[in-house]
């Protein structure tokens, strides 16, 4: 079989690819810092444990991207006469599987919460002699786990479109969709939840019905978005 001539992207796309690489390395560094930070403030909250697991899984798409574009550039040979371009598809499979796992864990966690009406016990920690409610620290850590990811995602998305790279696209899109689609209906829920966390006896569904509604709404929109975007 005839081995095809080597091919690389035109110079302009090569520059885009280099930018994407830098962004993905930044993402990995940042994501590792998120995982370490969350590990310190997990506490007794099941939701925080799920968030932590999801952030760990979110490390897979950038790693898949970096590996895939590295393998992609290998020269065609006897065994692979058309080159290694399909490595992108394998990377995409890995990335989308990881993101699917994130979606499923969020879904399972949300349903479990609806059923059990989990209300985690969160006490204080001592920071330089200050007695701070761990809940505030958790919220700060979660904000840190969302906002830089959103900024990185916004930078990655146009590059992914110009490079026609679906691994990068999946990685960028999932960080954007969560705040964009779920946050607007989620804000009032979030505020109510924080107030409730500070002190309330979670008995009785009546007071929680609104919370349940908006959680369900967030959930449905999240799943819809995921399904549409990645398939």
């Amino acid at each position: 079989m005839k081995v095809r001539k080597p091919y690389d992207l035109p110079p302009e796309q090569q520059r885009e690819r280099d930018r994407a690489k830098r962004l993905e390395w930044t993402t990995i560094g940042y994501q590792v810092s998120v995982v370490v930070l969350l590990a310190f403030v997990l506490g007794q909250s099941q939701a925080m444990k799920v968030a932590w697991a999801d952030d760990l899984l979110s490390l897979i798409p950038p790693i898949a991207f970096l590996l895939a574009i590295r393998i992609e550039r290998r020269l065609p040979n006897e065994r692979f006469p058309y080159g290694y371009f399909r490595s992108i598809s394998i990377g995409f499979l890995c990335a989308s599987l990881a993101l699917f796992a994130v979606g499923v864990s969020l879904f399972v966690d949300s349903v479990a919460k609806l059923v059990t009406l989990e209300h985690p016990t969160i006490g204080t920690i001592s920071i330089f002699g200050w007695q701070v409610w761990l809940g505030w620290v958790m919220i700060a850590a979660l904000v840190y786990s969302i906002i830089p990811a959103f900024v990185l995602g916004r930078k990655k998305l146009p590059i992914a479109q110009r490079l026609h790279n679906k691994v990068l696209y999946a990685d960028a899109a999932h960080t954007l969709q969560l705040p964009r689609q779920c946050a607007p209906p989620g804000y009032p829920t979030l505020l109510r939840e924080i107030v409730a966390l500070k002190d309330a006896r979670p008995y009785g569904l009546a007071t929680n019905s609104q919370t349940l509604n908006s959680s369900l709404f967030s959930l449905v929109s999240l799943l819809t978005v995921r399904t549409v975007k990645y398939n």
Partner: protein
Amino acid sequence: MGTLEQVQKSGTMRVGMAVNDPWTRIDEAEASGVEVELLRSFAEELGAEAVFAQGTVPELLEAAKQGEVDVVVGGFTDASPGVREQQEAGMTRPYLTTRFVVGVPPGRPTFDDPSGKKVAVASVGRSAALRREEGAIPVPVKDISSADMPVVAYPWQLEAWGFEPTGVELPEEKHVMAVPLGENGWLVRLERFLYTHRDEAKRLLWEEAR
């Protein structure tokens, strides 16, 4: 309505207590002990009165789960079975760390290795740790302050009774209280109180030894 609000409005703080001297005990139908005194002043700070109900640890944890008591005490540590799992009730941050040491009666030689030696203990709970950690032979004694053999006690108790401390120490114990699950405003208030009164807890323990 959260527990904190309920206590402040009703003026009553319902405490479940398991007897565990010197932390909690009943003297002539009246509750006393280090944790009892701490909770009395906590209730006072909230403008409420502490009402004590005695029970076993499983009963009290179940009562906390059902919201029938606002706080459960009984000299618990963060390793106490039933409390440490945090299934029925939540747990405060440790507010005090104590450590048992082995002491000898006045005039007796001290030692560093208690293995094989007979050591007097006041409660069964302490003997398990002693046997496990040090290989000593625990002997349950009613009043260890007048025992005629090495004893296991807090350092200040040894000092008060005139015993000589040896180099043998049991593992640290981190003391906690239990609260209903998810009552975070209440938990935060209690933890802050215990933090600011940590010296008070030590002082009370000291006085108990006298």
